[in-house]
């Protein structure tokens, strides 16, 4: 009995892995092959669009050039993500507990969200210089809002019946929060975290593009100025890859924590 269920889950796992890794991979292989063929047979110039083979060759031969830039962008994005989401979680707790504070704080958050971050980034550069700090700040601001909204909604969306049950045990406010509201809102928090983590990479790059000496955003800017298209595309690929890997890292953690939740499968 147990053995057969084990083989079944194993089979499902293999099929899921095939579906979630192999199929998208195949699409990319086809896409790159088409790209390669178009560039070769239509004789597209390398300053317009380099072939994937050229981009990958550049990437692998000068990987040591990219490595520190990857590190800087990754660092800025991660620190910004952590600061932004932690502050948003605190804001979510506060706003879910008090409608008054929500009415006071939410407009500020909305204002910060609707103002295009691209126009704020140069300001931070003037204020805080060319270092990593203004980039971290941009990444933090851009990943703040989705987490704020989702955590407020999540902490509020407590099942009435479960809440009444906790009250019937005379559970304290904190017990209700940590035992009921917080675990119950994890699906909301993870879905926001997936958005925020890719946003934080965008934030770091936007920061770098408005003035920096390091980071993949800076590589894109500089190579665009010199029409080094292979280098520019290599940096773009690396950024895309970083976004994919980070989003999937969140997904892996989510799966571990949300086995009880239907979307966790």
């Amino acid at each position, binding site marked *: 009995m147990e053995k057969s269920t084990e083989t079944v889950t194993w089979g499902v796992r293999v099929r899921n892995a095939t579906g979630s890794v192999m199929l998208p991979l195949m699409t990319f292989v086809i896409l790159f092959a088409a790209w390669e063929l178009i560039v070769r047979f239509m004789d597209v110039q390398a300053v317009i669009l380099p072939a994937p083979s050229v981009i990958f060759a550049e990437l692998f031969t000068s990987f040591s050039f990219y490595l520190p830039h990857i590190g800087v962008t990754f660092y800025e994005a991660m620190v910004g993500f952590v600061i932004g989401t932690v502050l948003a979680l605190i804001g979510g707790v506060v706003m879910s507990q008090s409608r008054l504070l929500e009415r006071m704080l939410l407009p500020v958050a909305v204002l910060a969200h609707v103002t295009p971050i691209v126009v704020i980034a140069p300001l931070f550069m003037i204020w805080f210089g060319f270092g990593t700090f203004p980039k971290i700040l941009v990444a933090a601001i851009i990943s703040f809002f989705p987490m704020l909204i989702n955590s407020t909604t999540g902490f509020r969306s407590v099942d009435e019946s479960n809440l*009444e049950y*906790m009250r*019937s045990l*005379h559970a304290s406010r904190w017990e209700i929060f940590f035992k009921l509201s917080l675990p119950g809102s994890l699906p909301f928090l993870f879905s926001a975290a997936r958005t925020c983590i890719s946003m934080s990479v965008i934030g770091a790059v936007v920061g770098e593009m408005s003035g920096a000496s390091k980071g993949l955003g800076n590589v894109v800017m500089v190579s665009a100025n010199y029409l080094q298209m292979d280098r520019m595309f290599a940096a773009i690929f690396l950024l895309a890859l970083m976004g994919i890997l980070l989003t999937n890292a969140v997904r892996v953690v989510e799966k571990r924590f949300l086995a*009880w939740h239907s979307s966790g499968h």
Partner: protein
Amino acid sequence: MSYITIKDVHKRFVRRGQWTEALSNIQLDIEKGSFVSFIGPSGCGKSTLLRIVGGLMEAEEGEIAIGGKSPQELLKAKQFGFVPQSPALFPWRTVLQNMNIPFEVNRQKVFNSEEQGDPISLLKAVGLGDFVHAYPKELSGGMKQRVGIARAFATGAPILLMDEPFSALDEITKEVLMHQLKQIWEEHKKTVLFVTHNIHEAVYLSDKVVVMSARPGRVSRVIDINLERPRDEAVIGTPIFNDYITELRESLRERWG
């Protein structure tokens, strides 16, 4: 000897800008260790009365004493086992972890260990021995409700408040759960306040049935069910059982007009 004494209780709500009387002049005595059902049409305030006795709501007027103490005092001391209509299981906890919630919160107040039931054997008693480590999403509606009932008996709370625990279930499941509840109750002898819509359930389970009427919500009759204990399914359909059903149905019909 009265254990729960309800005296002159009134409860009002604001509905469409006007005060409506949800409960009017409720008088009731409930003995320790008895099973009391509350039956009546929707809006008769039976769930409200249950929540007032359990300290979850407050009455504007009147007095409730449970062994000489107020509902709030008992609530703070974790003396109630609450079984709501939806089973109140946390989806991220297994069945056994859900059984443990009452022990994890409000920890400075501990349950009377002599009155506690063993969680595993209670789950076995309701037929969930194989689902101890299952998550709620793996259970049917009836199974979830059984966990809620088993949990109430496991805590050691002397008073159990059940708010239509079977009303969302199909007839067959309802029947099975009714027998299981009666079985556990006869073993543990807690004081149970049981809100229901079902006449059959009320007669089979109760020592006393409180018939309520709506607008304003009031107690219209209290019927003692003098069927022998322990009861079994053989009692269903006997002339005396059917007499109680008829009596109850008629007193409900009178009130519905």
